[in-house]
């Protein structure tokens, strides 16, 4: 990855090929989410919490595979899901944090110059003939804006869950149709029993902060684990058929 700050001067002629996202997504089994997209993610993905290897802190993710480097939603050309998480649709762009010498922090739009999406033969451009942002680039900006707008609220939401001891490890012991056992570790979710015993005052506080909907989205999304198992079983059955 080679992130550089985007500028009209240097990157006005940049060409992009969104179809090449597969090279980044195909082996990605978890994608970070922001709180505003939980509702949309719920349609397809279990929404889980996992720890950052750097800080140990929890962040929410859409679970897309049952093993590392496995994406059960990537069909070879597209992500087979109603909602593409913002952290995928923003690629190859990212929001960088620029620490000024005076200590002030500024957000900057960056582009990963080593991403396969940055391609001279790509169909998309950032700026059209009249010097205006293209519809494609306006779309990217909207995605980045949403990510930035909900970053803090997402962190606060997860921190609140941790502070209230509402997070529990999900211990999933799965047996696939092939008979193969699968143990998933390092995934966390809401402890429903504890959540349902929260005092009224806390529930009111959660409602005021807008935490109830995402909390229920997380709890309900565990039903999607079965869809992942189904996808995995279908994929393995397909593989077996291929070799017979």
């Amino acid at each position, binding site marked *: 990855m080679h992130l550089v700050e985007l500028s009209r001067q240097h990157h006005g002629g940049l060409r992009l090929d969104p179809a090449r996202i597969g090279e980044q997504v195909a082996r990605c089994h978890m994608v970070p989410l922001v709180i505003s997209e939980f509702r949309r993610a719920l349609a397809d993905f279990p929404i889980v919490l996992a*720890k*950052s*290897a*750097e*800080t*140990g*802190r*929890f962040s929410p993710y859409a679970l897309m595979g049952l093993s590392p480097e496995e994406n059960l939603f990537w069909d070879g050309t597209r992500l087979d899901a109603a909602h593409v998480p913002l952290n995928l649709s923003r690629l190859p762009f990212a929001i960088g944090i620029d620490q000024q010498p005076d200590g002030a922090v500024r957000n900057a739009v960056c582009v990963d110059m080593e991403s396969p999406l940055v391609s001279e033969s790509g169909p998309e451009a950032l700026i059209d003939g009249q010097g205006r942002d293209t519809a494609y680039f306006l779309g990217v900006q909207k995605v980045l804006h949403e990510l930035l707008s909900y970053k803090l609220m997402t962190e606060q939401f997860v921190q609140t869950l*941790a502070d209230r*001891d509402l*997070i*529990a*490890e999900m211990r999933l012991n799965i047996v696939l149709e092939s008979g193969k056992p699968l143990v998933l570790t*390092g995934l*966390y979710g809401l402890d429903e029993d504890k959540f349902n015993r929260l005092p009224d005052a806390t529930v009111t506080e959660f409602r005021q902060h807008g935490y109830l909907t995402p909390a229920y989205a997380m709890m309900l999304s565990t039903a999607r684990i079965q869809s992942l198992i189904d996808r995995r079983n279908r994929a393995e059955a397909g593989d077996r058929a291929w070799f017979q």
Partner: protein
Amino acid sequence: MNERIKSVCVVGGGSAGWLAAAVIAARHRQGHEDDLAVTLIESEAIGIIGVGEGTWPTMRNTLRKIGVSETDFFRECDVSFKQGAKFTRWVTGAEDDFYYHPLVLPEGFPSLDLASFWNHYAAGNEAVPSFSDAVCFQEAVCEGGLAPKLITTPEYGCVANYAYHLDAHKFAHFLRKHCIEKLGVRHVVDEVDDVVLDGKGDVAHLATHRNGPLAADLFVDCTGFHALLIGKALGVPFRSCQDVLFIDRALTVQVPYDTPDQEIPPYTISAAQSNGWIFDIGIQTRRGVGYVYSTAHTTKERAEADLAAHVGPAIEKLQPREIPIRSGHREIFWKGNCVAVGLSAGFLEPLEASALVLIELSVEMISAMLPATRDTMDITARRFNDVTRYRWDRIIDFLKLHYVLSKRTDSAFWEDNRDPATIPESLQEQLALWRYRAPGDQDFSSNSEMFPAASYQYVLFGMGFKMDLSERGYLVRDGVRAEEAFRRNAALKEKWTRSLPKNRQLIEKIREFGMQRV
């Protein structure tokens, strides 16, 4: 006589006092009207000794039980990780002479007797790694200066078993805050003018300077070397063990780090000297270093010179603090309605960090056995005394073991330590048995054991003790399981030395991000 036990008064506000108050209150104060009343009285004038800076892994469970966050503990008590002790120059006194007593048990222990196989392979073969290195991955982790866990490991969880190094003054302060704010312990700051006994020899109340008489049903004497209740008021005699353990003086200094990012060794260093040994404990902000020695064998001047040689140029700005060590303990620890915990109960050189762990075990036992009535207290006291005496005896044996196994001949101190007349019979018997087989759980069958057989193995074989397995050679003939265990250990070493962070690096992350509770 059927007086109910409704109140406990802890006397003294050092580590022992606050741990006693915390452990008792965490169990017996549940937020109900009939809760046990727990009071701690401490003096403003008398400071705390604050010598206990190394813990056992038991402290993790103690802290969890009293409900403190391990993150807060790290942030407020300058805590660092301890993964055992590195003993340097204890065996021959040579420059490269060292061995580890790690906190992770030997691979396969206790179902597999790897020690016997190691002895078998190591006999006459220089290429076989040291015992602690061959059977346990923690030595490699320590030598790499690595932490025992990852930032993703939850509070109190571990990759490799660990204990703590801490600032004893900050620890007492930290526990005080928790006891008062969270556990409902009543805190009285006052001087105790007198301990007043009733007609039956129980402590009736403390006469205090400003708060009048302070009565309680049970008193916990945590008054340190003063032993105000158990010694002065109740006259329980002190039993010296200086005929076994010769160390009677400590010279301690607090050494600042050269740079703020200086590495913190994740283990206690115990460096043998001509007439004692030096402990070197790294916490976040400084090292705590002390020479504990025998005044019968050396002079203070000589000891200061040895300490200076260990510390280096930094010693010039430091003034060593002198602490007398009277090795030994009370004849009994619980008399009438008073039980002694901490330095008032006894003290030994800190060779195996036994001070804080004895406090934890004692207060846990007091809390769990807390008698409901005065007439059942004497039964409780008798049991407490038996168990606690057993523990002191085992610690004394284990400390003596380090001296008995040394081959140093550079001073009378080491020679005298090997004089059979100074070795407790219980230890002599164990050593006689271990000439022919490795220490095992069968040697330590009490519920009140201090050190597991594995600890004895680490010290024995780390110090070059040789077993004669010829009579039981068939036990080490089939090495398939042993070789698997050695390979597993090698794989763990490879894995964890590659993935664990540096000790200071993890501590800084804990300060910045905290650890998760799950």
